[in-house]
């Protein structure tokens, strides 16, 4: 059973069709990247899989659960990190992690918070209010929040967006590590070099259509390109 099955997914916003009959599968423990420029339909696809948006037509299965019929069950096994997400400003970093952990297994609450604090790696600043954090610190706290609960599926929208090189590198390592422990990761990025390093497989999406899918190395070979960015340019031109 695939971790995610997306079958002919369509999403309309009024008269605008943002996602046009896309299909792809993600295997368990895989890091899968949805790659494309701004407005390609990446976030919409992730928001549908995260149960935030309803689909217009098609079907999505997460760990075998039908998205339209079992959204509540899906929310128990996924973790979604939106692009530019924020945290509650009046809470401390630790209090925010505790607030999130309260929604999950009460027996594991302490363990989840400990893990969240460890991933966020904010030292003593974890006790400070979120309002006082820099953008990088906030993003690390949110990554900690998203991954501390050992989700079966982590959906990360532009996980390193706006971060400096060091912070981005640390977060990439964290993502690699959780995938090794069995968490399936679906991420979106328009940073094609990042996904080349991170992802086992990628899908190139442009104007709501998946134009190519495969391992980064295989795609580079197929299109005789030196990086994924070149692959994308060649695929879109074709």
């Amino acid at each position, binding site marked *: 059973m695939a971790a995610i099955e997306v079958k002919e997914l369509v999403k*309309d*916003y*009024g008269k605008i069709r943002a996602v046009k009959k896309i299909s792809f599968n993600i295997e368990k423990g895989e890091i899968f990247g949805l790659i494309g420029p701004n407005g390609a339909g990446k976030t919409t696809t992730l*928001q549908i899989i*995260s*149960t*935030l*948006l*309803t689909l*217009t037509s098609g079907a999505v299965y997460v760990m075998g659960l039908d998205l339209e019929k079992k959204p*509540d069950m899906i*929310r*128990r096994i*996924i*973790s*979604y*990190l*939106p692009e*530019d*997400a*924020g*945290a*509650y*400003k009046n809470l401390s970093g630790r209090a925010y992690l505790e607030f*999130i952990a309260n*929604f*999950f297994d009460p027996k594991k609450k302490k363990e989840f918070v400990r893990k969240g604090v460890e991933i966020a790696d904010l030292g003593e600043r974890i006790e400070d209010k979120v309002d006082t954090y820099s953008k990088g610190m906030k993003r690390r706290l*949110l990554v900690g*929040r998203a991954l501390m609960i050992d989700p079966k599926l982590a959906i990360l929208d532009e996980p390193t967006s706006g971060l400096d090189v060091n912070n981005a590198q640390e977060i990439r390592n964290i993502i690699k590590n959780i995938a090794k422990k069995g968490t399936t990761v679906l991420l979106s990025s328009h940073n094609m070099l990042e996904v080349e390093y991170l992802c086992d497989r990628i899908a190139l999406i442009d104007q709501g259509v998946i134009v190519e899918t495969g391992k980064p190395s295989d795609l580079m070979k197929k299109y005789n390109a030196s990086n994924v960015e070149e692959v994308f340019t060649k695929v879109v031109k074709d």
Partner: protein
Amino acid sequence: MSALGNIIKKEMKELLTPATILPIVIIALIYGTMGGGIQDIQEQAKQPPIIGIINEDNSTFSMNAVNILNQSAEVIFNSSSISDKQAGLEELKQENGVALIVIPNNFTEHILNKLPGQIEVYWIMKGAGVMDTISSGMVDYLITNINTNLSTELIQENNSTNATFILSPTQKVETTYLKDKEIPGLSPSVIMSMLASQSIMTPIIMMMIIIMAGGIVITSMALEKENKTLETLLTLPVKRTSIVAGKIIAAATIGLILAIIYMIGMNNYFQGLGVSQIGINLADYGLVLSSPQEFLLVGISLFVTLIAGLALCMLLGTFAKNYKSAQTLIFPIVALAMIPMFITMFTDFDTLPIAFKIITFAIPFSHPMMATRALIFGDYFMVIAGIIYVSIFAIVTIAIVVWVFKTDRIITGTTKFNLNKIFKKRK
């Protein structure tokens, strides 16, 4: 276009959205209609007051008094025997009469003996609002005229040197019938002012809670969107109903605490002004809530209305894009709460025309504002019907909010009804 013009154009476009304009247009229409209604009431008040007269005295002074009344009032009941009092009252009640004026058989005799002649006034009060006492004010004015007229006559006749008697040759003895209560010794204006001072607190409490708690709910929704925490919250394993209920209960609790603090200050302010020291004990006339059940009903009415109001705020909060837009969204709620507040101050639900009764009943905030007065006059049906209506209103509004939370609207700001999809699902 100049830089200033460019900025003004941009600001106007941002501020003039359907979400801000539509509620205000609806409120303006409601107020316009209400204004028309109040004008009608004022027009009615300009008409001569309808009264009845029982003149047992039938001599010079009483005839003069009757003439004054006949000139400025519409007299629909005339009699010369006090035994017709009940019949007179019944007829006046049926014909929207204001008062039955009884001049006893010793009226002229008393005055000639330099004793004040009694004028018995039986007031018929339909409601306890300011508007309901306009007609009685006019009759009061006529009675003052009778007094002045008699004074002039007595001075011309050089009847007495007792200044007190000359200036007040008549004595008014009043009894007011308000709904089913007989209240001896009090005039409609005194009753109205006492009831108003007693029932003014509930509308103020209601307004304060709505402004404070409603503001909290709408701002909370706006901040969730502005800080982008809502998306995370909606993907957590928590029911939409719990999110909505959690926000409403938290806001209601904080709103109540803030309102209590506010009311402590307000109470001290009123005590300082001496509003509560008019000197008449309303309990003596049965014009206060007397049983724990009555207080409980007022409490329930206030509670369900608070929940309904907050659910309405939550619904408006889903329109809020950020903190700035949230500030304008509280206005329609405040304006809606002001309608019943004015109604309870100026008129009475029972005396409103049917269209306004419907509007007033439909506004949830009306019910706790009207509950105290209704219970004082034993109208339990009105209060219980109000509680049932507001409870249904709250449940339906919460259901709509939960539905909005399940749609794309909460994330994208738009909702599209896909009838084909609904139809397909039903099949």
